[in-house]
Every structure is written in structure tokens, then in C-alpha cells.
């Protein structure tokens, strides 16, 4: 992660807004720097971190581009693996050697009558005793220091990829100082919530309606449920304190997950701390905005369209059987979120009537661990939605009691669901 001194020089602000100044992925000078640095790192595989840092300092020289050079280098370093495997545990060796040296009085470079022992003598004695060469002793002595660690592996990034990654790190760097993040998403809900949960963020969700009166004003497409969602992200203590940046790091981690969506926007309240010894430059938060045009690339992996073969088969069969004129309902994957207090439920499929727009939701329950089922039924109960249909495998162990409080319809099936019956249920439940 980039440090504050590497982020600050790449920021611009004014009129209550703040932005980063990303590097151009086609700018030749920048590409050359990125290429030089990746090559420099590659050349230092097998060498000490201290040497690498020396080389970076030489490369930087008197260049005014030093914030960029250091930022690119930091981005590379964060992906590197450094390690050392000294033949002796350095801490134990130090203790052994230093205690022995202390017994001999101050060790000197220029021996005299009173001070006869040189450090080389002590090293030589220890080497003889431990049956090692003096060189091994010298090398092991501080092998655990950062600068003595050996570069094992560098990230495999092309110059362009390095610049893209740097630009992402810059954006994330700004988010370290975020007190609240508001996002709009129009797809990819499952991944979004997977990462919200993973990074222990808390959310408030509401449907994005028309483009008119909403504070965001960027809901696109059809109004209502299909318009996407606005989600506010913060953390547990946020409501009880004035803007805390305690969760900024988690928001920064979350950002690449947001980039996995196709249709998204983000704004965050940023509180840039003043540099040490400087007076506060800003009063109140600055607004930081991003959208797909910002050109940021995610390095997270999007999950596939389906979680299970059951779901995939269901969708395939539906598409095959109900074509063209026969189609009354449009099947969509995970396009609606049901908020449940501090969590959400995202049903597997939705059916939307092609003519009148009525909708029903479908959740498929396959073979799962009992605890998972317990949570699932608890969620279904909480959802309390009459337009939610549950398809349950007969192999699944659940009792009528489990289903008693589920307000929608439950259908059981043996091997695969009978589509006709499902559509009958959709017809009954859709609103």
C-alpha cells in the first residue's frame, strides 16, 4: 500500500472535491520508467533488499519524478517476496557472539597494550567453535534485518500493468482517508456483497429510483427494482462518532470488487490528514468520485455466472424450452437484492413478465450442510416475501416446520425441477 507521502503529491483538489492524478498508460516517459523499474527489480532477484534500495535511489537521482518512481517501486515491492535462510538463527548467533565479545573487553580496530583483542579474532574463534567459516558468521549475523533479506520473486507485470496497478493503488490510497463510501451498482450484486462481508464493512441499501430527486442522480435504465441499488458503506462504530477514517483501509480493499461491476459509480467522503508539522489545509470532507470512465482495472477475480450445476441447468433448460413466441417470462440471474437488516439475500433468479412487468423471485436449495440450510431458512423467513419461490431438492433434509414461516411458495423436486410447475408457481406468486 502506498504511503501518505507517495499519495499526496499525486492529488488535486478544489471546490470541495478531491481527485488523484493517475499516470497515462500510453505516456512514453511513464512507460519507460515502469519498464526500467520492472527490469531493475528482475535484475535484483537473488540479491539483498539493501542493494535493491541503493539501486532505486541511484535510479531516482535528482529526478523531480521521485514521487512517481517511488510509488511505482512501492507497488512492485508490495508484490515481491523477500526472504533469507541463514544457516544459523541470527538472534542466537548475535547473543553468542556479543556475550563472548563483552568478556574480552571493548573490541578494537587498533590493538594496544591494554586492548589486545580485535573483532576479527573473536569472529575467527566463534567460527572455529561452531565449525563454520568466518564469512558465514558475518553473513548470518544480521540476516534477519529487512535490508539483508533476499529478493526471491517479483510480480509478473508488464509496464502497462504496473501503471494500471499503481493507478489503482493511488485511488485506494485516497480511500484510506474515507469516512463513508456510497456506491451505486447495477449488476454484480453477489460479488459486491461477498466482498462487503469479507472486508467487514457495514451497509445501508436502497433501491435507486429514477434519475430525478435522488442525491446520486445516476440511476440508469428502468425505474424501480431494475434500476440498481445505492449502498452506503461504513463500519460498526461510525454512527457514534464524527466521521471516522477507521474503515478507510477496508474501503480501499473493497474498491477492486466494485470495479468488477459493469454499471457502477462511487463517491466517498475524504479527510486528508495534514502533513506532519503543517496546518490543516482542509476543513470538512472532500468528495471523491469514481465511475467506469475513471479507467481503473480490478485485479480481483469475478465469480462465474452460476454457483452450481443445478442453477446452470435450470437456466439452460428454461432458455431451450421457452423460446420466442412461447416466452412470457424473462429469466434473469440475481438481479434483485432483498435487504435483511445487517445482511442481504440475493435470490438466484427473477422472472419478469414480458408484457405487464410482474415479477417473481426464485431460490434453489440443493444439497448443503445442515448449518447452511438453517441459515437459509432463517433468511427466507426474515425476507417475508410472498413473491419468493423456493425450489427444494427432495434429498434436502428439512421439515414442514422449517418451511412454515416462509411466506412464499415451496416446491419440492426429485432430480430436476419441472419447469411447468415452476412457471405455474411464478404465475401465482408474481406481483
Amino acid at each position, binding site marked *: 500500500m502506498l504511503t501518505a507521502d507517495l499519495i499526496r503529491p499525486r492529488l488535486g483538489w478544489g471546490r470541495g472535491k478531491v481527485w488523484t492524478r493517475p499516470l497515462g498508460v500510453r505516456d512514453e516517459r511513464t512507460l519507460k520508467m515502469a519498464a526500467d523499474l520492472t527490469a531493475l527489480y528482475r535484475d535484483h532477484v537473488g540479491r539483498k533488499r539493501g542493494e535493491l534500495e541503493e539501486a532505486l535511489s541511484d535510479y531516482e537521482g535528482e529526478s523531480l519524478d521521485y514521487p512517481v518512481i517511488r510509488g511505482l517501486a512501492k507497488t512492485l515491492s508490495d508484490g515481491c517476496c523477500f526472504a533469507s535462510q541463514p544457516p544459523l538463527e541470527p538472534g542466537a548467533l548475535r547473543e553468542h557472539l556479543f556475550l563472548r565479545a563483552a568478556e574480552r573487553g571493548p573490541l578494537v580496530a587498533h590493538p594496544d597494550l591494554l586492548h589486545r583483542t580485535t573483532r576479527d579474532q573473536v569472529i575467527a574463534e566463534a567460527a572455529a567453535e561452531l565449525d563454520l567459516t568466518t564469512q558465514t558468521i558475518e553473513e548470518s549475523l544480521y540476516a534477519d534485518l529487512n535490508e539483508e533479506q533476499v529478493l526471491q520473486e517479483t510480480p509478473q507485470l508488464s509496464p502497462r500493468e504496473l501503471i494500471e496497478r499503481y493507478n489503482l493503488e493511488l485511488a485506494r490510497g485516497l480511500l484510506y482517508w474515507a469516512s463513508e463510501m456510497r456506491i451505486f451498482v447495477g449488476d454484480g450484486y453477489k460479488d459486491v456483497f461477498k466482498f462487503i462481508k469479507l472486508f467487514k464493512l457495514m451497509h445501508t441499501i436502497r433501491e435507486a429510483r429514477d434519475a430525478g430527486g435522488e442525491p446520486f442522480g445516476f440511476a440508469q435504465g428502468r425505474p424501480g427494482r431494475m434500476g440498481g441499488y445505492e449502498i452506503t458503506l461504513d463500519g460498526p*462504530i461510525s454512527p457514534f462518532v*464524527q466521521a471516522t477514517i477507521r474503515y478507510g483501509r477496508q474501503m480501499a480493499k473493497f474498491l477492486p470488487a466494485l470495479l468488477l461491476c459493469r454499471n457502477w459509480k462511487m463517491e466517498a467522503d475524504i479527510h486528508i*490528514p495534514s502533513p506532519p508539522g503543517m496546518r490543516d489545509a482542509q476543513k470538512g470532507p472532500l468528495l471523491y468520485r469514481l465511475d467506469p470512465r475513471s479507467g481503473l482495472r480490478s485485479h480481483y477475480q469475478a465469480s462465474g455466472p452460476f454457483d452450481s450445476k443445478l442453477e446452470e441447468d435450470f437456466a439452460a433448460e428454461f432458455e431451450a424450452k421457452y423460446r420466442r413466441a412461447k416466452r412470457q417470462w424473462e429469466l434473469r440471474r440475481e438481479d434483485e437484492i432483498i435487504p435483511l*437488516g445487517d445482511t442481504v439475500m440475493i435470490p438466484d433468479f427473477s422472472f419478469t413478465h414480458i408484457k405487464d412487468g410482474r415479477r417473481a423471485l426464485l431460490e434453489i436449495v440443493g444439497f448443503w450442510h445442515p448449518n447452511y440450510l438453517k441459515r437459509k431458512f432463517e433468511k427466507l423467513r426474515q425476507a417475508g416475501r410472498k413473491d419468493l419461490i423456493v425450489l427444494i431438492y427432495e434429498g434436502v433434509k428439512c421439515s414442514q416446520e422449517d418451511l412454515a414461516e416462509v411466506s412464499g411458495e415451496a416446491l419440492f423436486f426429485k432430480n430436476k425441477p419441472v419447469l411447468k410447475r415452476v412457471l405455474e408457481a411464478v404465475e401465482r406468486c408474481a406481483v
Partner: protein
Amino acid sequence: MNQDKQCRFHGGTLVLEELDRAASVPRCFQWVKGKWRCPALHYPEIQPWLREQDIADTVPRWKRLKLASADDRQPHDYQQEALRAWFEARGRGSIVLPTGAGKTFVALQAITHLGRSSLVVAPTIDLLHQWYTRLMDGLQEETGQKLEVGVWYGLEKELRPITVTTYHSAGDLVAEVGNTFKLLVFDEVHHLPAPAWREIALMSPAPHRLGLTATYPETNPNDQTPMSQQPAPGWDLAPHQRSLEELIGPVVYVKNIDELTGRQLAEYRTERIRVDLTLKERAAYDAEHAVYAAYYREHKLRESYGPGWWGEYTRRSAYDAEARRAKVAERRLKRIVANAQGKLEKLESLLKEHARQRVLIFTAHNDLAYRISRRHLIPAITHQTRAAERKAILEGFRSGSYQAIVTSRVLNEGVDVPEAKVALVLGGTASAREYIQRLGRILRKQGNKTALLYEIIVRGTIEEGISYRRRRKVEYKVREDADC
């Protein structure tokens, strides 16, 4: 289905499960994102209510510890009074004692008597290390077994029933596992009101809290001495209205400085030794210095900006090629001075001269500290040294197993090394605080022996100016103290 009402700890808050919006709850709770929630700080207040309502309380995860003191020292009367006052206030509140009056010892006693998992929060990593040592040495299991103490900061993260952390790391720790500690000890508690730090106290359910300081904030809780680290994140935000009293409890005990005599400090003597650069070093230094000095002279920075010229010069070096060149030259010349061969030669002769005394060597940078360590085979302590090794080195120094140790300014704040008779300063910043602390360290509780501080500076370099500024600040400080 079995839907039990429950109160649980989550991210520094208390959450009521299975209580809906219509439920009547204590006033500290807010309806947030579909749940009743309040800062964990309120835990002791709501406990009776939880019992009354038969709400399962899964908050406390702290442990009972059977501790005994491993410290033979007899507490001073004022230490016992302070402890009594704190327990009478149901184990909440701050104790104000002057520096050097044994605040740590009071905390150790509090932890021992309470016998529950405790978290100590220290302002700096240096002080964290000192607490670690004091806790390891001062506490033991009732059975006489050694007690392992945990440390939690950037370099090392190991959680134990008794753990030491820093203000910087405590927030995340408390948000995650705040309910595993029944007592929080805040060292230098006057730092706590800063917005980001205050959240530590807010997010903990610990019913017992002990604040320690020599300088309790008088009126304005936001007017504090800056910490050595970066300003607290969120420092610039408007203060949230929660005073130290709310977060920790009232001041339960105060002892002023004049009530304790300053006898503990010994006499000391400072000797400044000038060494020369080698011819080669001098040539390199002069070349770099010419570039550096030419810049601020040609641009009349001192004349135009007065004392703020340095800030202006640094600001310019971010976009002006000439200023940047000067900055790089300045960095190089400082390196030449810091690593001057003459210092190492002088160091060797001083080590010979004081071969029978404990010597503490200070350097401005890690690399010189490690060079000296390798050259004389003496232990080094830097910010890369882990808690256990650091403790072992200082113990070895105290017991006399080591005659000398070298350190790069990490022993800065009030770290006890009472056995040092001689301190050698090989460089450092002009910061007065650092200088005073270095002095104070070797002088602490010295009996009647005179301690010695050598400052080795390179003749005809910027170091002479730094040393001068450093001393001038000290005199200033002493005068200020005399005025009080």
C-alpha cells in the same frame, strides 16, 4: 425456532439480537441498520438491564488470572494511596503522578490485584517495549510460573491475556477483540482525547480503566503535546464531545512535582568533542555543500522567509529542479557527516577510555548503529529489534554482561537504563526533547556518581549548527521549567 435475545460484541459496539424496533432499550442504544446498537463503552451501565430483561450476555470474554507480584520493591506511600483511590472509584479513573514517580509500578499493582485480562496502551513503540519488560519482570502466575506477555504493533502481533499495544494499533485490536480485556491501562492518557485515539476507549466494553499521566489536560482536551508519530488520523476533525472523564473515569489521585523531590536526578557533565572529516570526505562534503548552500543563498530564502525558509525550500524541492538538486545534495552531505570515519575512530578511543563503565551509544541512523554493532560486536537496538531480543539486550546491559550497546534513537521516551554511566551521541536531530531525554536517561537514579555525556560532532559541518540549536533549545526549556 429458538430465537434467544442476546447482547453481543461487534466491532467495538454492543448489538442486541432479536429485539425489534418497538422494544424499549436503554438510551445509549440507537436503531442502526436494523439492529439496536451502542458503543461498547456503555457495557457496565447496561449490564443490570440485560440481567433484568433476561437477555443473554455474550460480551465478556476476559479471563480470570491468578497473578502475583514478582517485583520486590516496596510501594511508596503515594503509590499505595493512588491505588486505593482507584479501587475505591470501582477501578475507573486517572492517576496523575510526575515523571519518574513510578506510574508503571502502580499499573502493575492494579493488574495484579484485579487479576483479569488487561490491555496496556502506550504512546510509542519504545514505551511499548518498556511496558513489555516491566510486565514480564513484574508479574508472575500465582504458582510462581513465568507469565508470558503479548505485544501487538506493526512488527509483532501476539495476543495474550496481558498484552501491550500502542495507541496507533489499539483501535483495530479493540474493535476486533476488545471484549477479551476487562482492564484498559492508558499510559500518557492525555493523548487519548484525540479523535482517532478516543475511539479506542469508546469501542471497549472493559469496566475497568486506568489512565496514567504527568500532565492531565486542564481545560481543552484537544490541546496536547504532539506525539512523536504522525498526527493521529482524524486529528483535524472537530472534537466529539466526550471527555476523558466519560472515557476513563474521573481523576482519582494527583501528586504534584514539588511534592516529590528532584533528588533522584544525578549531576552530569557534557563534553563536546570535535572530529575532522578525512580529506576525501571533506572534498565530497564541500562539493555537496556548495550545491546546497548556493541554492538557498542565491534565492535568498533565509532573507525572504525567515525561520520558515526550510519549509519553503522543502516545498520547492517537489517541483523545482534546482531545489530538488539541493535537497539531494543535502541528503548526501548529511550521510557523509553521519558516517564520518573520524567519529568511529573517536568512538573506539572512548570505548577504551571507559572500558570499565557501562556505555550507551546513540546514532542518528540505523545503518551506522549496525556498522558499530558489527565493528565492535556489541548489541544494537533499532526499530527493527523485536520485543524479546530488546529486553534481553537491556537486561544484559543492566547485569553487566554487556559493557556497551548502540541504539538509533529508539530509546527516546523515558526508557530506563539506569546503569549507563556514559552516553555517546554520534548524531541526531536538533530536537530538544530527544536531547533532554538522552541526558535524562543516563542520569536517572544515579546516586552520587557523576554521569558523562559526550557529543561527537564533525568540525566545520552543519552538525555544529545542529548541536548548537539543540543546546539552545535545552536552555530554553530549563528556563521555562524554572519559571513554573
